């Protein structure tokens, strides 16, 4: 079995967002970069499949030189090899999907694991787009995955519950929190990863469908008000305010 894991480098969740001078991208100064947390679930799942039934795990990222950190980490965690599709700029999910599809074509992957969304970009689009471009099955926002002979059975989160999706391999599966508990890299893994090289390829050129033309910070929220008195008085004052001022009820 051959598994591809698509990993995206994203700003840490603590990042204080500053808009760059171009008015449409994130100011990269002071940003700490991490692997998107959902992609960590995807990688962990691939490694567990490898441990349980044997598999070759390839980690892939589309990005620039700094993105190699994500791939080094993936190798330390247990990926067999890593590929960086190099390209400049900030394309959209559609562009990334086309680049990954061009790489994947004819390489015989049985399973492609992604995060359900890239933290920050939050499009939740690359996986389903890739599935479409490869003309294979998809299952998104997965909290449980079972593989059969050429088939999969996945539990996916939906409003107020979950549903079981079944389909044929190859497939694109996108991971949600709850799928597993990602491990930390061991010293042995980190040492072994140092001996592995990251394959660097120029990404096949592709056009984007959507662009960010402006990035803005949300408007400041108006200053709030503290409600005084004992618990009963505070409760009373709150409900009156919600009713009369905010007109929530």
């Amino acid at each position: 079995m051959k598994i591809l894991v698509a990993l995206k480098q994203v700003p840490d969740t603590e990042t204080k967002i500053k808009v760059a001078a171009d008015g449409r991208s994130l100011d990269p100064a002071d940003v700490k970069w991490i692997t998107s947390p959902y992609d960590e679930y995807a990688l962990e799942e691939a490694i567990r499949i490898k441990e349980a039934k044997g598999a070759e795990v390839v980690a892939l990222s589309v990005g620039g030189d700094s993105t190699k950190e994500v791939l080094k980490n993936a190798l330390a965690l247990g990926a067999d090899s890593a590929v960086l599709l190099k390209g400049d700029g900030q394309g959209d999910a559609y562009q990334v999907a086309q680049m990954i599809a061009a790489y994947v074509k004819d390489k015989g992957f049985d399973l492609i694991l992604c995060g359900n969304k890239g933290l920050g970009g939050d499009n939740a689009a690359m996986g389903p787009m890739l599935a479409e471009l490869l003309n294979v099955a998809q299952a998104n926002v997965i909290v449980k995955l079972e593989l059969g002979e050429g088939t999969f059975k996945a539990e996916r989160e939906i409003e107020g519950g979950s549903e079981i999706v079944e389909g044929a391999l190859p497939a694109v599966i996108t991971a949600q929190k709850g799928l597993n508990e990602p491990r930390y890299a061991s010293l042995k893994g980190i040492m072994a990863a140092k001996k592995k090289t990251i394959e660097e390829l120029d990404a096949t050129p592709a056009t984007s469908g959507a662009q960010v033309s402006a990035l803005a910070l949300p408007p400041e929220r108006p200053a709030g008000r503290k409600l005084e008195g004992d618990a009963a008085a505070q409760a009373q004052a709150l409900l009156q305010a919600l009713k009369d001022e905010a007109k929530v009820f």
Partner: protein
Amino acid sequence: MILVFCELKDGQIRKPSTEALSEGRRLADAAGKQLGALFAGASCAGAAEAAKFGADVIFTAEGPTLASYSSDAFATLMADTVKAKGATVLLAAATAVGKDVAPRAAARLGAGYASDVTALSIVDGKLQAVRPVYAGKAFATTTFSSAIQVATTRPNVFPAAEKAGAGATEVLPAPAGDFKSVVKEILAKASGKVDLSEANVIVSGGRGMKDGANFKILEELADAIGGVVGASRAAVDAGWGLPHSMQVGQTGKVVSPTLYIACGISGAIQHIAGMSGSKFVVAINKDPEAPIFKLANYGIVGDLFEVVPELTKAAKALGIGSN
């Protein structure tokens, strides 16, 4: 044409779909275009209601092959309808199904896609979208270079406005079957309760709740004011038996209710990211310095175990939530 993919539940159009339809109507008027509504399922009974939300044409695809959701079947239907009707804009609500199928349909159409948008407009004949990024810490204006533009609308953001449309009907053939993946079973569908992402009122608890069993007082308050209960990650991860589906935040649900009541939640940046789109925020916390107060329209410094039951009592006395 502007085409809106709509979902039915128990013979009624789901609320997020009526919101997408209403926004579609507004855009169709701005662009001088027709509004189409697309339904798919074993039965599309109830689809006619789309005329109330401005649909000029209602397309229905019915049949046993559409009884269960299949991403490839639904994406095919959507893309084929867009092409056959010459639609330039395809919308769906950003629901579990909408978010699953819309990007797949977009890729089929070679179209750009904006997910979970909070504002839409037509500029120079093309769709333009505003969407939260970095979990609401910033807003990105998205423009499209593709001839067809696809977007999903965030639930609870666009008002559902009734406006009569012609409501002509057209029956579409259902796809033949043999799909790549299909939903086999729906598990643990919580009865009657709306999902956090669609809830109008949310009462959330954090580590300050001290124990999962104490969430009962939040349930009671939520029941009294017509709300749903959420949680911080600290509460979900504490081993109190709360499911991840309750988690609000950057790695949980991003919510946009009218009212969000945070009980015993400090207001970490990752939590705020998930609920800063709430219209009104109430914070109940014993620490007057808790960051959540910076965001709160109304703050109560106090012990939640005293305040929350008082709120429930007062809400019942005022007969709130009964409307």
